């Protein structure tokens, strides 16, 4: 394992210290429990948004703390949901009396720890609501799974609900908006290589040189199946068609498209994938009216990509376009 780290034990602390030093104008980092909090939190008369999850997905979530997006992020250990104490500490730091919305990716660990934290918040008389994000079409939401995973849609949801909260929407409205986004967004991902969890020291899985993993999540888990290596066009189809079929997206739809790298995929390849996605959607009469191309929701040093589509309406589009000022997403300011 070759990584630019000191020791696996110090990785998260060092990275957070770097984040704090680099973006002290936007956010503050606190340690033990580890929290990243918007500098002006609690923001008066605003619903507070908290997201969290294992580290290793940077810039998610810590890079999305700031005006127009998250009030706080709770980074757990690498790929490990944060502990309730962290989430509760964040809750106390950011709530301004208008309620707190937990934005939770649907994994057993995340839901359980946020559940615990919500119980603690309830005892402390802080109003909390929770939204589960579960957009990964690679997983069937059935009795036979822990339900669909939360992946790429997370970023879009954080941005859009963040804009609504910033504009003064109340807790119920934010929650409803999140539910609407969940209902209209779908994702799917693939990997060319596994990642290496620092404490583990070796790749989580080994892929032959001529195969890729289809239907991966964002934790280096193997995907639903292995497939023979193929062209960007063919891979784009294998990602896009299940997404389109699932909602389904239909001719005439306007969508926000996220082409996301898994951490080690260079931008040049992501633009190739965006080009393929665009052509596939064109063929279905679906128009991309907003888009984002880059490494936003990563799995450490995994190579690969994911597609996320979110059906837009004028309200969502306006909220997407609203100013945002975070380390990793910034426009309008």
């Amino acid at each position, binding site marked *: 394992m070759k990584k630019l780290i000191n020791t696996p034990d110090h990785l998260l602390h060092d990275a957070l210290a770097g984040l704090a030093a680099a973006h002290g104008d936007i956010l503050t980092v606190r340690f033990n429990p580890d929290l990243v909090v918007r500098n002006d939190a609690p923001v008066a008369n605003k619903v507070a948004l908290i997201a969290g999850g*294992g580290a290793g997905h940077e810039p998610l979530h810590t890079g999305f703390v700031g005006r127009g997006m998250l009030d706080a992020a709770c980074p757990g250990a690498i*790929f*490990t*949901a944060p502990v309730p104490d962290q989430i509760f500490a964040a809750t106390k730091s950011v709530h301004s009396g208008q309620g707190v919305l937990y934005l939770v990716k649907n994994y057993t*660990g995340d839901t359980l720890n946020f*559940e615990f934290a919500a119980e603690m918040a309830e005892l402390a008389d802080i109003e909390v609501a929770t939204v589960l994000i579960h957009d990964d079409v690679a*997983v069937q939401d059935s009795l036979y799974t822990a339900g669909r995973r939360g992946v790429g849609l997370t970023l879009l949801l954080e941005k859009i609900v963040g804009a609504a909260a910033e504009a003064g929407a109340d807790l119920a409205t934010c929650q409803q908006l999140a539910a609407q986004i969940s209902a209209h967004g779908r994702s799917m991902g693939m990997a060319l290589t596994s990642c290496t969890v620092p404490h*583990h020291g070796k790749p989580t899985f080994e892929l032959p040189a001529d195969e890729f993993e289809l239907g991966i999540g964002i*934790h280096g888990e193997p995907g639903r199946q292995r497939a023979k290596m193929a062209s960007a066009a063919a891979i784009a189809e294998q990602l896009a068609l299940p997404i389109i079929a699932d909602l389904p997206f239909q001719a005439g739809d306007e969508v926000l498209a996220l082409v996301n790298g898994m951490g080690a995929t260079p931008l040049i390849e992501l633009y190739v994938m965006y080009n393929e996605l665009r052509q596939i959607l064109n063929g279905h009469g679906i128009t991309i009216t907003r888009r984002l191309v880059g490494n936003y929701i990563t799995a450490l040093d995994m190579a690969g990509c994911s597609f996320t589509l979110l059906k837009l309406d004028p309200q969502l589009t306006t909220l997407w376009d609203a100013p945002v000022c975070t380390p990793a997403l910034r426009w309008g300011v």
Partner: protein
Amino acid sequence: MHPGIALGCLIAETAMHITAQQILVFVGKAAHSIQTQRDYLTDLDAAIGDADHGINLDRGFSAVLIRLPDVADQDIGTILKTVGTTLVSTIGGASGPLYGTAFLRAGMTVAGRFTLSPEELVVALEAAMLGIQTRGKSMRGEKTMLDALAPAIDTLKATLASGDDLPIALCKSVNACETGMRSTIPMLATKGRASYLGERSIGHQDPGATSMFLLAQALLDTLDT
């Protein structure tokens, strides 16, 4: 790196009660075993999860070891609840709330007690299991830690009912726990991260069932010395 097989049930006659002191020893042994098997547990998790189960539990039990002296003279309920809250606030992931809840719920059934009868042990374990099931919305057969815990409790109850001494009963129970752990290999996972793999989860031993077996073994070791 493979955890040892449970010993054959060749245990000498010993006391019929578990003391608070033994619970402390148990927790220490459990922490040690988790640390020793850290990489093995993580490797198991790499196959069907995200390669952190050993890392997670080791972080939690190391924190427990630091807290343990604070409750060295306390009752079993307090000890177990301290273990539980420490696990909850240091592990994270799925196993943190699940193991944490297990210890918390077990501790609640034995509040104020400095010794436990075999029957009280069973009640505590059943509370632990119910805690996991409730938090995890899970049951036996889903390829989780429950598949090691449930048969262990079943066997413990049956063999105690048939008149076995606690050490003998626990020995048989740990054997059942091991069998349960192994039974996860052919299972299709329907809970936790492994469930995302569908059919590909088959053929791998569940890391949580494995750590559960390590805990059971630690308890047996404790009574055995």
